[in-house]
């Protein structure tokens, strides 16, 4: 084989690193403008419509582990996020006894293949938090700048929901939402009593078609397995593959980018990557380089892009590259609903996520913490697979016989089997997802002592929650109890207290990490400008969540998509004007 060829002769117009939400959107918009594009992806190609890639609708007995998670698929054997918290040969480290867990997906479409499809716009306040509470910093752009792109994303990709007219939860172009499930109606009773709003969710799943290329949802609840009908959004099925069909887009898979190459004038000239296939180094050339490798991975590439022109790496002289890393907060609680024991059976799969949710509803000026959270709900008659019938050593006592006597915990036999059937579908719960305050001291940097198996220096994390997040988690726990109790549920487990930071998940665990290449007008306090263009390297752009100045209590994907679209249009414009 001709492995001696290590440099491509003809440059592309644009090289995009990463094929997730940001890279995928860039590949579509840039190729539609007629540009030649290379998408460089660290994992393999993936298409859920191909039988060999399909896990949707497979019953658990097709898996020897009955769908249990593995290291490479922590969310289950059929989940379509290949990678996980720890990837063999691709380590990361932590500093000063702090914790940050880094979730990566190595595949076309990245983490969009399995995510919850919760597709929320940031609201006007979410771009100007510092002006409201004096903490952190404002974005250099506001909702008005992004609104046209959110509108376009809604129509291109599809999202269901309802127009609510809530100021900081902007409405969009919504498809009809599905009706609630039974446990959601019970929970709504509790939320109503507590005067907490609960509205139809906003998820990027096609309850009706938006074009003739993608199918509609057939309600299997398995969006995390990626949809063979393309009825949910993932970057591979909705952006990268369509772009490859229509435009000049080449996809390089199993290709791990080491650095952005630059010339003596400090211009990016392309990327250097290691092929996982033969473990050799290759170079691609381009007029523009776009990083969409995920917030931390893109900042890692910039840190490692050292050269004569950039002795500390690209963007490093800002002093904030890798800084202000922040993830959403998360805490949960569950209960059991006596009214749902012995419930009637019907197909309750629905869409792959909740049908109703709670947007942030309070004013932080009247609270002892700065930022809000939304609440996600779960429960119902889900597919029995690994874990089914579990926990009866503690749960069986909630089942009562006809005389009101509780079953004993544990046990065995026909009685246990019947009790498991009786309790099925009666547990429910909720999780808060909140906004944290971005901190200079929460960061990733290059670990000077560790490299991955490709010889690329790895990231070292330093992250601590502040009192703001801890008090927010405490508030979540109080709210969860109020809703569950009001709904008529019996609370399960002990209420998480200060010893566990009120059940606050470790940083990174909610997989909404952002902020490491944040945007701003001042090159001394930001890595990229308001067009996501590196201050110190005019033909280098970042299209993942790295440029976020603050991560609202919303899931970041819809904003990544809108920003990437806007950045891509800016790139086309700047190329036309010969500014880059």
């Amino acid at each position, binding site marked *: 084989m001709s492995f001696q060829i290590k440099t491509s002769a003809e440059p592309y117009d644009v090289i995009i690193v990463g094929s997730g939400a940001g890279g995928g959107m860039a590949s579509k918009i840039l190729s539609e403008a007629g540009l030649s594009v290379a998408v460089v992806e660290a994992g393999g190609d993936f298409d859920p419509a191909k039988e060999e890639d399909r*896990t949707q609708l497979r019953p658990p007995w097709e898996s020897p582990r009955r769908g249990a998670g593995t290291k490479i698929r922590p969310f289950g054997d059929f989940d379509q996020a290949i990678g996980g918290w720890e990837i063999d040969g691709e380590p990361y480290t932590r500093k000063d006894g702090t914790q940050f867990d880094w979730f990566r997906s190595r595949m076309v479409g990245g983490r969009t293949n399995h995510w919850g499809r919760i597709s929320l716009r940031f609201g006007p306040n979410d771009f100007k938090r510092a002006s409201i509470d004096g903490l952190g910093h404002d974005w250099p752009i506001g909702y008005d700048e992004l609104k046209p792109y959110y509108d376009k994303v809604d129509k291109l990709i599809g999202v269901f929901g309802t127009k609510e007219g809530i100021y900081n939860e902007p409405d969009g172009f919504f*498809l009809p939402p599905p*009706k609630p499930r039974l446990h959601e109606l019970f929970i709504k009773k509790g939320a109503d009593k507590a005067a907490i709003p609960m509205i139809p969710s906003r998820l990027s799943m096609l309850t009706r078609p938006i074009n003739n290329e993608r199918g509609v949802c057939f309600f299997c609840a398995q969006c995390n397995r990626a949809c063979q009908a393309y009825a949910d959004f993932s970057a591979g099925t909705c952006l990268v593959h369509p772009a490859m069909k229509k435009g000049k887009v080449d996809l390089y898979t199993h290709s791990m980018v080491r650095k952005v190459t630059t010339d003596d004038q400090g211009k990016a000239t392309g990327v250097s990557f290691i092929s996982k296939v033969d473990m050799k180094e290759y170079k691609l050339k381009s007029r523009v380089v776009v990083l969409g490798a995920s917030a931390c991975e893109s900042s890692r590439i910039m840190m490692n892009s050292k050269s004569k022109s950039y002795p500390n790496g690209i963007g490093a002289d800002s002093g904030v590259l890798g800084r202000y890393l922040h993830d959403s907060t998360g805490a949960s609680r569950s209960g059991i609903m006596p009214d749902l024991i012995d419930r*009637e059976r019907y197909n309750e799969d*629905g869409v792959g996520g909740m049908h109703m949710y709670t947007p942030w509803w309070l004013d932080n000026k009247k609270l002892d913490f700065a930022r809000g959270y939304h609440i996600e709900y779960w429960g119902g008659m889900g597919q029995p697979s690994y874990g089914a019938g579990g926990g009866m050593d503690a749960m069986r006592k909630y089942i009562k016989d006809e005389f009101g006597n509780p079953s004993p915990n544990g046990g065995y036999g026909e009685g246990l089997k019947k009790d498991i059937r009786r309790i099925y579908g009666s547990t429910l719960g909720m999780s808060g997802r909140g906004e944290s305050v971005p901190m200079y001291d929460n960061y990733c940097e290059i670990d000077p002592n560790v490299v991955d198996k490709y010889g690329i220096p790895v990231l070292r994390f330093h992250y601590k929650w502040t009192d703001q997040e801890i008090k927010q988690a405490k508030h979540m726990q109080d709210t969860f109890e109020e809703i569950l109790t009001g709904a008529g549920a019996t609370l399960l487990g002990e209420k998480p207290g200060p010893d566990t930071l009120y059940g606050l998940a470790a940083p990174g665990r909610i997989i909404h990490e952002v902020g490491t290449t944040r945007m701003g007008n001042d090159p001394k306090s930001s890595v990229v400008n308001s067009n996501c263009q590196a201050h110190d390297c005019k033909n280098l752009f970042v299209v993942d969540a790295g440029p976020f100045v603050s991560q609202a209590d919303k899931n970041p994907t819809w904003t990544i998509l809108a920003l990437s679209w806007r950045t891509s249009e800016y790139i086309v414009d700047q190329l036309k004007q010969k500014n880059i």
Partner: protein
Amino acid sequence: MNRRENLKLLFTGSVGAGLLLTGCEPEQEAVQGQLMTGGTPGGRTDEEKLRDAKLLEETFFTEEEKKKLSTLVDIIMPADSESPSATELKVPDFIEFMMKDQPNNQTPMRGGLMWLDFEADEKFGKPFNELTKEQVIQIVDLVAWPEKAAPEYIGGVRWFNMLRNLTCSGYFSTEAGWKYMGYMGNQANVWDGVPQNVLDKHGLSNPEKYSDLFLKPEDRAKVAQWDEEGNLIG
């Protein structure tokens, strides 16, 4: 073919998948021939295929242990008029696989199975596998009831909880388990809300505010169109 096309071929064609196996030892290559015979299907990486095949080839439980396990899983999930027993559903094979897939459970599981012989010898002067059904139940009862168990059996209770969980996992994740549970999903359908009789039974109703906005099944084939304010008009 220019240089870029050549390079492109290297990474975009069929070359990528499969080449990761090139460095394999001879026995790994032998395993490779058996891929997809029992491993999970659907978008597997080469590492996953190799791992599944390797785990399926290995044996964890001894014959004696497997016999103990079969006795126990059928006590936990016996056959009844509606459903088969755990051994009929091959639950021991599932537990065997899980021991290799999640090796942290190996020591506690093996420890629990060994304890059975200690207890059988103490009480009846025989190995566990030679006990009568009644004698077996006497031993199981020592550890099967977390709230009634004597304090000295707390370790055994923990082990039996694990065994109960694994048995239930292996039982209800089968076609017969789904049937017993009454699970009706995992198939294409149209969700149109909770059935009316179920709503009535619980005294609940869909929020009226949204009754015109919820998906109507008959609209599922119509391509969505909006006015400029985002109202659905078609």
